[in-house]
């Protein structure tokens, strides 16, 4: 298995790893897992109005999964809340050079992040974004 330099860098120092501190109406968490793909991911975000102030993750998975979670957490910080439902998966694939056989794992990360969006929407923190 080949790993890009960006995967190696993020695997060795996964920026965004951990939990969002505190609790409140702007904080949401989402999890997704797939035993067959050997992946579990939890995302926690803190929104302030329509802006994501913090995004953190916990992950069990391969180096690509860890690096991808880190890349997404960084890309979400400062982004509008709607970004939770429109992750730039193509940009992620390019940035990390994710092999085709690993793409299923990225979907689990996407699921965890979407679960955050749903939770924020249900809590009325922001208007639900359709589509």
């Amino acid at each position, binding site marked *: 298995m080949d790993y890009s330099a960006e995967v190696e860098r993020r695997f060795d120092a996964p920026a965004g*790893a951990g939990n969002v501190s505190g609790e409140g109406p702007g904080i949401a968490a989402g999890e997704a*897992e797939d035993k067959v793909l050997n992946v579990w991911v939890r995302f926690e975000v803190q929104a302030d109005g329509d802006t994501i102030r913090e995004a953190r993750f*916990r992950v*069990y998975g*391969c180096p690509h999964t*860890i690096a991808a979670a880190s890349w997404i957490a960084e890309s979400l910080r400062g982004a509008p809340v709607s970004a939770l439902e429109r992750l730039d998966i193509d940009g992620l694939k390019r940035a990390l050079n994710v092999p085709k*056989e690993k793409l299923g794992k990225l979907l689990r990360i996407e699921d965890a992040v979407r679960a955050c969006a749903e939770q924020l929407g249900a809590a009325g923190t922001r208007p639900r974004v359709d589509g």
Partner: protein
Amino acid sequence: MTTRRRIYLDHAATSPVDPAVSAEMMRHLGADGTFANPSSSHAMGREAARAVERARRVIAARIGADPAGLVFTSGATEANNLAIKGVLAAARPGRRHLVTTRIEHKSVLDAAAAVERYGCDVTYVGCDGSGLVSPDEIERAIRPETSLVSVMHVNNETGMVQPIAAVAEICRAHRVPLHVDAAQSAGKLLLDVRRDGVALCSLTAHKCGGPKGIGALWIRDDVTVVPLLHGGEQQRGLRPGTLPTHQIAGMGKAFELADPAEEGPRLAALRDRLREALERIDGARVNGDPARAAPHILNVAFPGVDGEALRFALREIAVSAGSACMSDNPEASHVLSAMGLTDAAATSSIRFSVGRTTTADEIDAAATRVRDAVERLRRLALGAPAWCSAWRSARLTDDPVFG
């Protein structure tokens, strides 16, 4: 980026060529050396043939075998193929049944699958939770039409030493030849084909300080084998082709240097030092029974970490996976699965193997790096569900990872 010292703990995969071996090989390569074709009748050819015969005697002596029965091959994979396909092809129709085990090396399992496709019957015997094959199960699998039993000496993933003498006794009682894949045991563990009643034995050079690309199949004189290759009368037509004098001489030198009585205890001490250090990691569990394992292999499961991630974290340490964890649907090791490990436990397992160049300092450094990597990956997965974080329940009475 800090570059960390690389540590080689993958001697069961291959070992560096011993300087004495490469020096010996060089003597048979150049114009001023014994480069001539050993099958040639001129003086230079005869000199090369003598070098081949010297090596043959040394290699045969290491397994207590008659040198005349040694057929040089490209390695143990070819030797295993020659043994299985060659014996099954030589068997009378109606007597083409092979008994082997589920924990053999792929070169045996794939050769067995090939003879099945050619119309032979194959019975695969399992192993117990520690990775040992039961001689009684082998006996139950033998039928009147069985023409070969094939059992490895040392399992390449767990290091478990199989009960060859007991299996051989059963084979002798049923008049079935026993083939032993001894690729992992040369230089580490004594095998005496005459004493133990082995009929065919596969060997390789590169796991004990010899070069890659050379191995041998020893065939007892009462066993008939049909060749895989055709094209010459070398090696009694069993394996035609110009004999590679330098490779054979290198293998001979490697086997001369590989003394199990001397090397075995040193390797066992290094392995035990590593095992004791790794067992201090919460939840780490040795796959197999260390008391019945070869001295150079240690296979450990680290529940709560993804195997691919752990190997990547340890990329400056050369170790092997017990699994091919390279796809979206990682396939667990067939050996660890046969031992009853769950996929999660099997894919979190790592094989460490020590060799002649391994030092105690390297063992200590490797153990520290493994502990750090496991702890880092587990911290990253804090809060994960039980199926991927069961290491925390490993101390409880019910251990779901190892079912």
